[in-house]
């Protein structure tokens, strides 16, 4: 694959997307929401399919469906007392079925595994912009989301609203997925949402270093994966997963320092 003159904006967009997902990834591990977020990525599928059918940016379609999806989950979670995870199961399979009906086989493959060949400058700008939004919100809400995740009672006792924080977190996840899917695809979104933080947790002794490692591994995974897919006939999503998995294994093998 060759990206010609577009490789500089592509790298910038990928870097920002990786930083954003590294951040969000660290929240998800704390909340034990990793697999839920992976399932949630399928909700983007009908939106991507609509974009491909009617020739508008698939990212926008995907984002719209994700936002509707998380708002539904959020509303229903407080209404039905079903776990967010259960509701995601209901919503994602429905979206997956609808999306598969609408998209052609090639389009589906592209949506599942990511495709850099058809990425446009406008899409990269949008990805970079949304990534900055995610990074800003994640930074602003970092302490509150962490406290709410590890000690809900303490968070409530200092007047933090669990309902609001849950919404912020779900919106962050939706935004991150919409940014990431065009790089790595719907199926392999976990390479950006689960693997960086899972690898980071093996090394980190403090929360600061945990977030730092998570962002670093996310950047290495995505840029490494994209570089591999530029030189070898392999889809960027698959390459990113392989690089991230390699990092995970290396960190497993590397002897751990003593716990403080």
């Amino acid at each position, binding site marked *: 694959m060759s990206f010609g003159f577009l490789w500089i904006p592509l790298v910038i967009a990928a870097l920002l997307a990786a930083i954003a997902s590294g951040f969000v990834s660290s929240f998800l591990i*704390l909340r034990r929401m990793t697999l839920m977020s992976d399932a949630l990525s399928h909700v983007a599928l009908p939106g991507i399919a609509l974009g491909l059918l009617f020739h508008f940016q698939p990212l926008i379609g995907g984002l719209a469906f994700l936002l509707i999806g998380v708002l539904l989950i959020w509303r229903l979670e407080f209404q039905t007392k079903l776990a967010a995870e259960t509701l995601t199961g209901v919503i994602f399979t429905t979206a997956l079925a609808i999306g598969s009906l609408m998209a052609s086989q090639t389009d589906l493959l592209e949506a599942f595994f990511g495709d850099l060949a058809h990425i446009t400058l406008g899409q990269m700008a949008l990805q970079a912009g949304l990534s900055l939004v995610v990074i800003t919100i994640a930074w602003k809400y970092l*302490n*509150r989301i*962490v*406290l709410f995740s*590890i*000690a809900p*009672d*303490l968070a*409530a*006792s*200092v*007047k*933090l609203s669990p309902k609001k924080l849950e919404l912020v977190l779900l919106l962050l996840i939706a935004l991150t997925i919409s940014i990431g899917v065009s790089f790595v695809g719907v199926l392999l979104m976990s390479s950006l949402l689960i693997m960086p933080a899972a690898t*980071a*947790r093996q090394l*980190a*002794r*403090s*929360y*600061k*270093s*945990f977030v730092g490692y998570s962002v670093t591994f996310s950047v290495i995974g995505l840029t490494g994966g994209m570089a591999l897919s530029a030189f070898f006939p392999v889809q960027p999503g698959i390459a990113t997963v392989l690089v991230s998995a390699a990092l995970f294994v290396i960190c497993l093998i590397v002897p751990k320092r003593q*716990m*403080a």
Partner: protein
Amino acid sequence: MESLLRVKNLNVTIEGKEILKDISFEVMPQEVLSIIGPNGAGKSVLLKAILGILPVTGGKIEFGKGVKVGYLPQRFAVDRYLPMTVEEFLRLKPGVTTEQIRESARALKLDASFLKKSLASLSSGQMEKALIAWVIADRPNLIFFDEPTENIDVAGQESVYQLIDTFHHQLKIAVVLVSHDLNVVYRYSHRVMCLNQKMQCFGAPIEMLTNDVLQRLYGEHAVFEHHHHV
């Protein structure tokens, strides 16, 4: 003297079940008020309702002017692999400053190395201390302490009460304590509330904790055991 907290005719119903009925009391500055009662009596629910963590179905909760509230929850189980230091945990409290963290560590006689410890590596007694550091960091004048029923070694438990006693005397903090130990109630509290959905008694421990009241509260067998301790 104006009260720090005034609770009037409080009712709490959770999923159709009446947990608390018609609870009224006041907390005065610098007093230690213990709440006792059998399992499921609604002690923790009462604290959570007062703190706004659980919704109330009826009644009034009024805090006095300038009252700053702290809360030590009963359970604070940390994921064994949570990568976070004690200091980072304390910093999660909204509005807390570095100076306040240092001060509360000093008050608890915790050295700098304790702040650098991983939260997940703490013993239950140490965790309780970290929680107390969290609670006193922004200098509250009213603390709600939901005593843990288990998982704290006797040595740890002893020191936690001594600490609370110290704060009460040094920092003039009023304490509302949910307790399972009548010894502690006799030793540390000015007033006691017996709770079992409704208030069964309220007043000085020595006057309130009669055989008759305890029997009504816990049943005959329990009274014998508790009496044995005292």
